[in-house]
């Protein structure tokens, strides 16, 4: 629901990820982190929920 609400607000869904990874699933952890990093990188820096302190 959180993802849906963010998306509803116009925030890219790919900025939020959920995953179950057990401590034994090292490979899955690596894959998930890589996937998330790639997706978020593709979206570029968030300007919506990032505060600009220089203002």
């Amino acid at each position, binding site marked *: *629901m959180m993802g849906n609400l963010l998306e*509803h*607000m*116009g*925030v*890219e869904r790919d900025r939020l990820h*959920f*995953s179950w990874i057990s401590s034994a699933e090292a490979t899955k952890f690596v894959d998930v982190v890589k996937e998330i990093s790639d997706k978020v990188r593709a979206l570029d820096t968030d300007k919506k*929920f990032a*505060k600009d302190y220089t203002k």
Partner: protein
Amino acid sequence: MDTCIEKIRTICADLLAKGKVQKVIGFAEGSIPMASRPIAVTSKEDVAKLVFNATCGLNLANYVSDVLPKEGKIAVTAKGCDSRNLVTHMVENQVSRDQLYIIGVPCTGMVDKRKIAALFEDEITDFIEDGDTLTIVSPQKKEKVSKKDVLRHNCRVCTHRNPVVFDVMAAEPVEEQSLDQPFADVDHIAAMDPAARWAHFQELTKNCIRCYACRNACPLCYCPTCFVDESSPQWVGKGQDKTDINTFHFLRAFHCAGRCTDCGACVEACPMGINVRDFTRKLNKDALELFGWEAGLDMEKRPPLDVYSPDDPNDFIK
């Protein structure tokens, strides 16, 4: 609604006289046109102050847990939404059923005061309610409108006008509405492209002054310390920065996920007229679609995000 007011007064006078309750929480006439105010009545002489009309748009469940006596009961008048929030309070351990005497008030909706004010260029000096007909007076003009046409949006889409729990009813139940498109407002936003959706919410909250009236009018917000008031860790900045305002509204709404009865008190209370329901309505729609859940209908079940069930939708977990 006049007969219902009489009935409320008779019931309350009786309850207080017989000592069945120590207090009655209800609405009283306000000091300016189109205003009403919550009131606690303890003596039967004051019972005459109790009213019920189309301006009683706040949620009285918000007042219950603050005034609970150590022993004995309090009575509360409850519209459909108030009663659903009382159920939520019972489920969430804020009050127990035997501490309450619930006077159910069937409701045909509350008026949107801003909508009415917008019909006038000058200020309203009088407001008279007679069934569905509202007579509104200003120095410049006098106008009759049908209540149906100036209902608040949440009342227009309400499908629980009758109290879901009560000890006594102050009137015969009213017919419930059935809607073809209960979430047209949500769908309308959803149909926009992401940038337009973001712009919509930015525009929506641009006048927010962070008075927290929306939060404080909400019966769901009863945490002793709200996350916005925390300083360690500071979840959200306290200034008027857009990001902080967004964060506040987003998180406030999310804390209501699966718990909101769409009573509209948040919007009613907002001095800046912000329709903060744009946030909660989406969550209500999801709660219904994902969990078949409407808040405040079942005293035995906790809200869906409070519990785990193996058949919960979990497609979002990758």
